[in-house]
Every structure is written in structure tokens, then in C-alpha cells.
């Protein structure tokens, strides 16, 4: 990795091998992996906001997308580097560098017991709606967000439907109900 942030894009030599623990490749000071040929950074919850700010000054001007993922019930390492502990939730941010036409992605692990991360609203105002959506559907709070209200669901809604342990509910369908009863009897 050169000082100005330009990196060698080879799949095997991403970043600076040897700098992280256990010879893990790092980029911008955080562990980096590739998924389907795409660069993925794994910052900690504390370093996440600072990293986005730094990346913005290096050309990643546009925060294209932010979303949350609930990984309850999935096992394994999920492609995470060895030094990153898997948690139930992930906040995923996609950044875009227009000048060099490249993308990068940040995956932040968010524990179930304390689903809070820093808001990126000050860095990228365009993420306001995405953070509200993630809060609404997954119940992840964003510290410092100016208006963390529900966006897609009604204000008085209870629960966060994209969570895996949320009951999906069902509308009774006439013929299906008949089939169920027939099966039971």
C-alpha cells in the first residue's frame, strides 16, 4: 500500500501482508478480505466512522449504500478474517470511488447485546435514509443520527421484521386452511 492510498489490486497480494496479527493482510489499518473478487474491509465498531472519513478523503466520495444483516443461525466464519469475532449483526457499507472507478465494502460486526454503531450522517448525509431503514427493519441504533425514527413501517409498529427471530406471520388462505385441517384430522 503506497502512502496515497493506491493499492495493488492483485487478489493474492491485497494490502500489506505481515502487518496484522497472524500475518493477516490489512488495508487502511484494518483486516481486508476479498469476496467474489470484491474488496471487503473489516473495521472494528470504534474505528468504523473514522475509517469512512479517511476513505472519503482518499477519493471514496460516495457512500452508495448501507444495510444491516442478521446472521442468527448461520454457523462458520462467514469469510471473516481470523482476528474478527463474528457477531449476530453486521452493518455493511458500500463506498464508491468515482475517480478510480472502484468500490470497497465495510463489514462491521455488531453484537446482539448492544446493537449500536456510530452514525455516518456527519460524513455522508446521503446515508440518512439507509440508516433509518436499518434501524427500522433490524433494530440497529445509530449513535448521532439526527432523526432515528421508523421510515418504512408505521411509527407505532412493534418489532423489527428483518430479524431472523421475528415471526413472519401468515394470512389465513381459504384452501390452505382446509388442507391443514384435513391433514390434522
Amino acid at each position, binding site marked *: 500500500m*503506497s502512502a*496515497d*492510498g*493506491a493499492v495493488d489490486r492483485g487478489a493474492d497480494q491485497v494490502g500489506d501482508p505481515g502487518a496484522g496479527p497472524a500475518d493477516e493482510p490489512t488495508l487502511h489499518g484494518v483486516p481486508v478480505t476479498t*469476496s*467474489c*473478487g*470484491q474488496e*471487503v474491509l473489516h473495521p472494528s465498531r470504534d474505528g468504523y466512522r473514522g475509517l469512512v472519513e479517511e476513505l*472519503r*478523503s482518499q*477519493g471514496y*466520495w*460516495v*457512500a*452508495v*449504500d448501507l*444495510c444491516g*444483516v*442478521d*446472521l442468527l443461525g*448461520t454457523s*462458520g466464519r*462467514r*469469510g471473516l478474517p481470523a482476528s474478527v469475532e463474528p457477531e449476530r449483526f453486521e452493518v*455493511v457499507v*458500500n463506498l464508491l470511488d*468515482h*475517480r*478510480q*472507478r472502484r*468500490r470497497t*465494502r465495510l*463489514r462491521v460486526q455488531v453484537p446482539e447485546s448492544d446493537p449500536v454503531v456510530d452514525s455516518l450522517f*456527519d460524513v*455522508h*448525509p*446521503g*446515508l*440518512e*435514509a*439507509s440508516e433509518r*431503514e436499518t434501524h427500522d*427493519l433490524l433494530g440497529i441504533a445509530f449513535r448521532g443520527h*439526527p*432523526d432515528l*425514527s*421508523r*421510515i*418504512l*413501517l*408505521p*411509527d*407505532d409498529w412493534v418489532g423489527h*421484521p*428483518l430479524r431472523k427471530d421475528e415471526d*413472519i406471520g401468515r394470512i389465513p388462505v381459504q384452501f390452505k386452511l382446509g388442507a391443514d385441517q384435513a391433514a390434522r384430522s
Partner: protein
Amino acid sequence: MSQTIDPTTVGTQDAAVDLAALDAARERLATDDAVLRMSATEAEERSGYQPPTDEGMGERMIMNMGPQHPSTHGVLRLVLELDGEEITRSRPVIGYLHTGMEKTGEQLTYLQGPTNVTRMDYAAPLFNELVFSMATEELLGIEVPERAQWIRTLMCEVNRISSHMLFMATNGMDLGAVSMMLYGWREREELLRFLEAVTGLRMNHNYIRPGGVAADLPDGWAEHLDSILDVLPERLEEFDTLMTGQPIWRERLQGVGVITAEEALSLAATGPLLRSTGYAWDLRRDMPYLCYDQLDFDVVVGSYGDSFDRYSIRLAEIRESIRIVRQCMDKMPPGDYRIQDKKVTPPPRARIDESMEALIHHFKIFTEGFKVPEGEVYVAVENPRGELGCYLVSDGSSHPVRMHIRAPSFVNLQTLPHLMKDSLIADTVAIVSSVDPIMGDVDR
């Protein structure tokens, strides 16, 4: 910085965007006090007259526009704070069309996925199918055959024209050019007839699927498309006569809803909304997918970032898309329309009659679906409204763990309060219309 691409090709020609300008724009967005921070429920209760406050704010009126309003393109609700005729602050309230499609996507197999996502942006359904299929293919690590790539390019561009025709129709209607609605609808209907001939459905096609497309182009498709493309240019001339040069039309749109390139970038706006500021960014040219790197077309940009530019860009993009479709017709290669990979492709219909294994194979693919290797991927395409992205997380089963769609309408809607700041209430309709949100895409 080691620039691999000439920086003059990105951004505005005269004043290239830099970090300082972006910082200034971010500061401006944070301090312009354009967004009304009020919950939807509170806005409902407090609607009407607002007495002057102790902090020195004068008399205001809070008005709820929509969700049932003909010019909000469905069920968009705008909470407007008015000072007389002027909008001081505003806030879009969305969610009236939310049907939990991302959650539904987790219950469906990868093969069923396109039937779900196609209903999001219902004016440009093929792009939704495309982005989902491309993301699945990335995870699978497969490459679809060349002909399928070209068919996808062709169909998407036809869909782009039909989507922009819908914009032309509704934009005209919103601004009082009611005859435009009929013309736009007429042209769109002809294009939908072509889409129907190929896919079987006018909308919600489920045509582009992981591994290729559902069926090859039917006999006589080129003649059918030719007959449409032959008349379109002169129809576009009529649009020009009816609207572009009209003083009333210009008065209604020019200088209305202005945004700068830096503001648009800070708000992550994409598509015609970003290009109207003069900032040339189009994924088709800048990060090519499908066959766009083998096609010759121009990225149309505006210069003032106002509603008129956004209208003109879409009109010009129809012409560019016609160019692209013509090239696709000339270059359409022979070959397979879907990948011949037994893992994702069901056996041909004729084989099912003669082979028990083929029948089992077919049954398995359509009931259990195919397994997709563990991983996560983000894929983006340029849809008529901007960057449409799909983030897929797979745990190795036949259903995605997470299927997130980055909807351009949803993100672009955030610019509305800034576009409407200090404008007249009569311009609201012109501004909303020029952003062209599709509520199915916004609410998902």
C-alpha cells in the same frame, strides 16, 4: 494519485469536483435547515396553522400532501412547512407501499428470486431481475453465454425507453400538458407490446434469471422492434415541439429544484438527478457490465441541475437507448440463451418425457432450488433512475440469508427537501416529478 483513467472524463468539464467543494456542500446541506424533523404522526396531529414561536420564527403552516395525491406517483406523502406560498422545510414520508420484499426474498430460492424483485421498480422491472441475477451469478461463479448477455442488454435498453416514456407521460401530465400523457402512454404501450412478445408479460416479466434468460427471442422479433424504432424518432420530435421549446414549459421547469454536483454526490444521488448537474457518471460507461463496453453511446449531462435539465436528459437518453438497441440488433450473436450448467439449468422440456433422471433433475431444481456457495457480493447496474444495487449474502443453501436492494428512488428521495427549499408550493409537483421516484422501488 496513480490515475489509471483520465480525470477529465469524470465530473464537470469546467469545474472538476474536489474534496474542498464536497466539504462545503456537506456543510451547506447540514445547515440549510431544509428537512422538517417531525414524525409522521406528529405532522398529522399538528397539521394546519402554526403560531409564531418564541425563537422568532413567524407564522407557519404545516400541510400534508399525499399519500393520495395524483402527482405524487403513487403513495408518496410530503409534509410541508409553509411560509405563505413558500416551502421552508419539508419531509417525505414513505412506507405506504412497503410489503417486506427483502424479507420475502429470504424465503424464496435463487430461482424464485426474480419473481419477487421484479415487482420493486415496476416501471423498469427487467433491471431488478438483472441485478439480482448478476449477483447470484457472481456468487455461483458462472458466466452466462454471449447471446444471453446481448439479449439482456437489448431488453434492458428497451425497458429503459419504456420507463423514460412513462416519465415523459407523467411529467407532462403533472405540469398540465395533458396531451403529453396520451402520447407518452401510446409509445410506452408499443414498447410493452414488444416486451410482452418476448417475455409473455407486459410487466413483472421474470425473464432474466440466474444463468441467462427464460426464453430465446421469438421469431420476427427484429422486424417487430424495427417497426417501433422506425417511428420513435419522429415521435420524439413531436415531444420536442410540444414541450422542449415551449415558453410555458420552460418557465415551469427552468431554475426550479436546483442542485449542485457536490450536493448530489453528498446525498448519494445517482442517475439523471446527478447527471443534470453536469457531472458525467453512468455505470454503463464508467463501470461497464453486460455488453456496454462494446457499444457506442453518449452519457448525456445537463448544466444547471434544474428540473428542465432532468427532463431534457431523459428525452436525450431515449435517443441514446435507441442507438444502443439498434447496435444490439446488429451485433446479436447466435448461441445459447442460457448457460448449459446442469447445476442451475433445468433440462430441456423434450428430455423430461424420455428420461426419468431429467424429470427428477427438473423437479429438484424447481422445488429445492440450487445451492449457492457461501459468500457475499454487491452488484450494481444503471437503471433509468440511477444506481440499482443488490447485496446478497449466502450461507451455502438455496435461499439467500439476506437480499438487500439499493433502490435509486429511495436514495434520490432524500434530495427532495433540499430541492424544494424556498421554492413555491406550486413547484412541488414539478420537482417531485423531475426526481421521478417509483414508489414500489422506494418502499419495497
